[in-house]
């Protein structure tokens, strides 16, 4: 089993007196797939921000293996093997789909290395594979700016795959996708899990059920419930704050 264990404990994030995360604990084992659900504003995205170095926690422990993530910047965390798909897909509009994927491809990241970069056969094959996997082969040489919302979602998932990270943080991957696309995404993520740890944030409970993994419910920045989808759906606290509304 490759990868390290993600460990969060006692994590709080305070924005101007507002507690977006409140004493949050979470453990994701290497190769595990985990779904995170919770009402709007529960702190799901903030949790990913903390893991990826975008937001520094006000207090608490965030480690990946034995590495303290709260002391590292975004780029170092990414190079450690933590990839992320953002809730609002952000791809590089001026570049083509192919170029977006090439930029994400695991390779030396320095300026000189990039100047001397030559896309070799293995890298090209990998890009072609991922382009096919995300259904964008036909659009490979179109600028990413002209893709539809769903296609941008796919491209961002593709860019995460290109990085080949040990841990993937996937924020609302199926927003704006058709049912068929949603199903395809669930299959894709299920295939990835096992080789990589995956944390998926999603509102769509059918999708979460299809993933068939352990579910964590967040509410007001804390862990409310954890277990199988059936367990959390029947947890009275969850029913009260989230599902019952």
């Amino acid at each position, binding site marked *: 089993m490759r990868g390290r264990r993600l460990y969060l404990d006692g994590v709080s994030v305070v924005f101007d007196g507002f507690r977006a995360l409140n004493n949050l604990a979470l453990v994701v084992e290497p190769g595990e797939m985990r779904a995170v659900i919770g009402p709007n504003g529960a702190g799901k995205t903030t949790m990913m921000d903390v893991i990826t170095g975008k937001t520094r926690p006000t207090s608490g422990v965030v480690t990946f293996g034995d590495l303290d993530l709260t002391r590292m910047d975004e780029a170092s965390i990414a190079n450690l093997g933590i990839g992320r798909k953002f809730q609002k897909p952000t791809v590089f509009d001026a*570049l083509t789909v192919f170029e977006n994927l*090439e*930029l994400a491809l695991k390779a030396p990241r*320095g*300026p000189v290395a990039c*100047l001397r*970069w030559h896309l070799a056969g293995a890298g090209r094959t990998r890009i*072609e594979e991922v382009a096919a996997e995300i259904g964008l082969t036909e659009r490979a040489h179109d600028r990413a700016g002209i893709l539809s919302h769903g296609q941008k979602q796919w491209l961002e998932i593709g860019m995460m795959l290109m990085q080949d990270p040990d841990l993937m943080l996937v924020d609302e991957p199926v927003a704006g996708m058709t049912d068929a696309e949603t199903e395809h995404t669930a299959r894709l993520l299920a295939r990835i899990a096992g080789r990589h740890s995956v944390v998926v944030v999603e509102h769509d409970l059918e999708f979460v059920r299809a993933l068939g993994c352990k579910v964590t419910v967040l509410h007001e920045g804390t862990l409310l419930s954890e277990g199988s989808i059936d367990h959390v759906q029947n947890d009275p606290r969850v029913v009260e704050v989230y599902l019952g509304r």
Partner: protein
Amino acid sequence: MSATTLHAPPLSRTRLGLRALMGAAVVILAAFPLLNMLPQDNVLHVSDFLVSVSGKWICYAILALSLDLAWGYAGILSLGHGAFFALGGYAMGMHLMRLIGPRGVYGHPTLPDFMVFLGYQELPWYWLGFQSFPFAMLMVLLVPGVLALVLGWLCFRSRITGVYLSIITQAMTYALMLAFFRNDMGFGGNNGFTDFKELLGMPLNTGAARATLFYASLLTLVGCYLFCLWMTGTKYGRVLTAIRDAENRVRFLGYDTTSHKLFAFVASAMMAGLAGALYVPQVGIINPGEFSPGNSIEAVIWVAVGGRGTLVGAVLGAFSVNGLKTWLTSAAPDLWLFVLGALFVAVTLFLPKGLVGLIQGRGK
């Protein structure tokens, strides 16, 4: 998973068209010094004035190109690029001053006239070495480069971007201007350097010298253009574009954007320094006015008018705006600043992609 092979698409026609435009401009310019040798009554005769003024414009085009690399590709809107240009110019000026030797008004064997006048007993340490051409050329690149490295490192590391970065670069050129105005800096105060005699053993006030400097500038322009074209065509160039459009996102892909921006900023500053060094022997003077904030802003307008992020646009913009300026400052000198301002507003509102955008729009 089976995968279809993805072939890179051929270069678009508009992009090829722009390169052809650049090539044509270079060929026409290259003919200027030759056409200058034709008799005056020949229709193809190019006047001394046009040769010397276009030699200056070529230097401006190099400056514009350097700015386009920083702004058009890496998204660093520098309002202080004139400072790098001026520093390159001063480094060349120091070399030219040392070459005057005992031919100055006071006839001092080593000290330039202004130093004798100010009562210097010996050459300040930072003037040592400038009698050597290779050393001076090294400084032409190194001084702007190191300044860009330090300033860029401080700003990029602290994630200062956008307007704040622009204001800092503008403040930098202003501060340098004030510093260079001071006599005790040892750079000739507000008079700067002038009365140059020769360069590389070639007397400067001859037609041959003018033509040589003209071709040196043109070659440098072509070299810088090809360098930028190569650089922006690599994955590094695509990383810069990505940083320009969504810097934070690039960080999450594992790129240390600070080092990428620094690399581009330093390369750009060195290019600007080179432009200044070619400019000074052609105009025969360098003074602190070259640091004035207005110069840097004008350079930004050239790039905006030509179309940023296209390289050819920067060159086109430098030539067209300066052509207009030369014509207008003789026809209606008071109007120039108004026209320049109006031009900038008009381009921003109606031609966001500049003249190049106009050409590309036609090509479709």
